[in-house]
């Protein structure tokens, strides 16, 4: 795209916006920034512009940029869930390519606005992460960049272990607030004899946490006793940013499917020349190439939405985009016919090769849903923060048939030790045998139970 084409692009964006609204979409107001490839790849690597500095971001940036330089992969679009939404267009794309991206983007910004799982997301996240980055930069100056980097290494190793839908807050607040009409000081002056007796008893140890806690980061934030303020702040930052990305992780197939459905619809209704239509068809085909070792969310999501529309009508797809997430979407709408048409299969490692083992549709659907559970990460909870009365941390992995990668788990436990500063245990299973990994700060040992 050259400078002369920019006014043409602006005009096209206006038209596409009108078309999208006319067809029933209701996206956030969207701002488009035209950027060079290096910038697009940087934002792709950091997931949001302006996020804090860390070598893992540099690594992701390098990998994305290399792939782009060698022509191995391209980012099709980059759009941020905020209000107004931000989207980035590549300055080296052709005008038609960018129109295609714009149509796709409105699908996403409509999805962000209406899907219920996004309802509680921070719509000013770009500003938030940039403030977070500023604080972390200041900590690097105050505490030393190596110190901060090492701490971030540890926190990022458990960044996924958060709980977007906690169940425990209401209980705690209930206990703290007295009911209306009650004397708020009544419990200080027990009047009944049995209550007096109870107070005289030795208190039983209060279990921390009372219920298994899925949110490792929050647990550390509240209960780790050696952390300095800047360290707590970094944990809070990583947790806040992880929480922001949760809805995107749990609606990847739907979100891409929805956007692909709309770029198809909208582009077909624009007055494209034959040449443009061919270019567009090529782009669409590239986006919808089957994934071989993994499913292509654009293609699978698109086909499911098209199938829902065919079976239940246009209204229904709007309802589905509002209420479901990937797991419920697949459970409800991935049919036998779709599994066959999309040629989905189950495969596993058999000696030297990954081989297809099953094509039965319900099996395919179940394996796919299982792989999305907890966003594809092992489900780990804090069971005890005072194990054996010695402040040791006891974690439990809810084993679902898949073992952990043990060398990885051992290194992760060492990271957690640096955060907790007391021995850390993890109970899991290895080939169906219950076992426990223990990190004492120096070494990790494995005990079969």
């Amino acid at each position, binding site marked *: 795209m050259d400078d002369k084409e920019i006014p043409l692009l602006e005009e096209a964006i206006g038209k596409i916006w009108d078309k999208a609204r006319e067809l029933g979409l209701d996206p956030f107001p969207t701002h488009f*920034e035209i950027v060079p490839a290096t910038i697009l790849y*940087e934002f792709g690597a950091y997931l949001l512009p302006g996020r804090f*500095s860390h070598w893992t971001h540099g690594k992701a940036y390098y990998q994305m940029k290399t792939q782009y330089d060698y022509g191995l992969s391209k980012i099709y679009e980059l759009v941020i869930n905020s209000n107004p939404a931000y989207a980035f267009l590549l300055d080296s794309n052709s005008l038609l390519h960018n129109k295609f991206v714009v149509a796709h983007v409105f699908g996403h910004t409509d999805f962000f606005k209406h899907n219920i799982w996004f309802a509680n997301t921070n719509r000013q996240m770009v500003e938030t992460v940039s403030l977070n980055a500023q604080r972390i930069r200041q900590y690097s100056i105050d505490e030393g960049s190596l110190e901060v980097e090492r701490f971030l290494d540890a926190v990022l190793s458990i960044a996924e272990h958060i709980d977007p839908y906690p169940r425990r807050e209401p209980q705690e607040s209930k206990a703290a607030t007295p009911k209306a009409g009650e004397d708020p000081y009544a419990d200080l002056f027990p009047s009944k004899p049995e209550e007096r007796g109870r107070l005289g008893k030795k208190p039983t140890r209060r279990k921390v946490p009372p219920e298994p806690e899925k949110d490792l980061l929050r647990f550390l934030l509240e209960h780790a006793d050696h952390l300095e303020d800047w360290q707590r702040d970094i944990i809070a930052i990583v947790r806040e940013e992880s929480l922001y990305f949760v809805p995107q992780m749990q609606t990847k197939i739907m979100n891409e499917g929805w956007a692909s459905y709309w770029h198809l619809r909208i582009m077909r209704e624009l007055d494209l020349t034959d040449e443009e239509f061919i270019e567009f068809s090529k782009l669409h085909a590239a986006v919808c190439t089957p994934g*071989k070792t993994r499913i292509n969310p654009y293609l699978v999501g698109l086909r499911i939405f098209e199938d829902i529309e065919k079976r239940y009508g246009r209204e229904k797809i709007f309802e589905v985009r509002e209420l479901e997430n990937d797991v419920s979407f697949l459970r409800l709408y991935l049919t036998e016919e779709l599994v066959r048409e999309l040629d989905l299969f189950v495969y596993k490692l058999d000696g030297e090769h990954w*081989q297809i083992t099953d*094509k039965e549709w319900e099996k395919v659907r179940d394996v796919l849903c299982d792989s999305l559970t907890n966003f594809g990460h*092992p489900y780990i909870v804090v069971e005890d923060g005072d194990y054996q009365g010695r402040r040791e941390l006891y974690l439990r992995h809810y084993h679902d048939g898949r073992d952990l990668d043990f060398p*990885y788990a051992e290194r992760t436990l060492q990271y957690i030790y640096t955060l907790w500063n007391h021995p850390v245990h993890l109970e899991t299973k290895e080939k169906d045998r219950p076992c426990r990994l223990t990190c004492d700060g120096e070494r990790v040992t494995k005990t079969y139970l």
Partner: protein
Amino acid sequence: MVSTSQHDWSLHRKGPADQARHNEKIKEAIRENLPEIIAEESIITSDGKRLIKVPIRSLEEYRFRFDPYQGERVGQGTGDSQVGDVVARGPAGAGKGGQGKQAGDQPGVDYFEAELTVDELAELIFEDLGLPNLRPKTPREMVTESVKFTEVRKKGPMGNLDKRRTILENMRRNALRGTPVFANLSNEDLRFKVWEQETRPSSSAVVLAMRDASGSMGEFKKYITRSLFFWMVRFLRTKYQDVEIVFIVHHSEAKEVDEETFFHLGESGGTRVSSAYNLCWEIINKRYDPERWNIYPFHFSDGDNWSDADNKLCVELVHKLLTVSNLFGYGEIREGGYTSSLMSAFSAIKDPRFVIVTISEKRDVYPALKKWFSRGGMAIG
């Protein structure tokens, strides 16, 4: 409800800055693993330009994750997939032990592999090495200035234009606009070589490599000799403009051979180390005037010498050779923990320029190099 903008992003440097930190960490990781890396077979048989791959464990982003080789996954075919079809190669089918796995074609496996040339690796290894005991020679002979192209810049005299890079740059710019051809050359495509004057100790060095080819030197010992030798010569070549190598093999008799024979010859028979030292002395006298040459005899053996009488003779010869040498290296390669008779005899030699190393496994190669070429000797130039 929609708006568009295009800012100047040319000063935005966040990604490259974090990438630089990542690169630094890669170098650190390689440095930490040098003992494991440098004795890899693929390196010493390479020509220096080929990329070698070094798996870097410490740069993996450890977290709780599932065993990447276990469990069922869902994939997607193009319409005709069958139960039993192979989707990808597994870990056992990809690559051979020690070389790491093939990245990219493994479902779920993500690890980092640094790619670097042998030259880059050499640079890291040689950072810590220096030339000890370099004898001062006349300055005229000692120092030469040479020109080395070190950098590429966007501005410079036309005489230094780097044509190849300029054409590539132009094609790259055109490719971004969809036409990967060489056309419309503009100033921003131009690339210039920048050179620096480099000062190196001149004159010449000769390495007299001696190897025990007796029956007791097995494959492992030959391999270690080769690996050490590879780095040693490479290192000396960075320090001297001209490095000559003389290869001597010995069992009970010594003879001068070519490089190929030196590394591959396996003979039966006894060992008389003095024969090699005598030949070494002869060759120096005939061909390498110590006034003009920096002389480095190195001897690799398992120390399993013929007789105590010969050991004594060897000690005398070492003293004699040290009068003309910068450094005499003796590398004893053994698989057990015994002390050889030759080693016992040598341990009486106190000259700091006589350096003994013992090697019993691959990872000893790097410490051996460091011992031979430690800094702290005389400064160069």
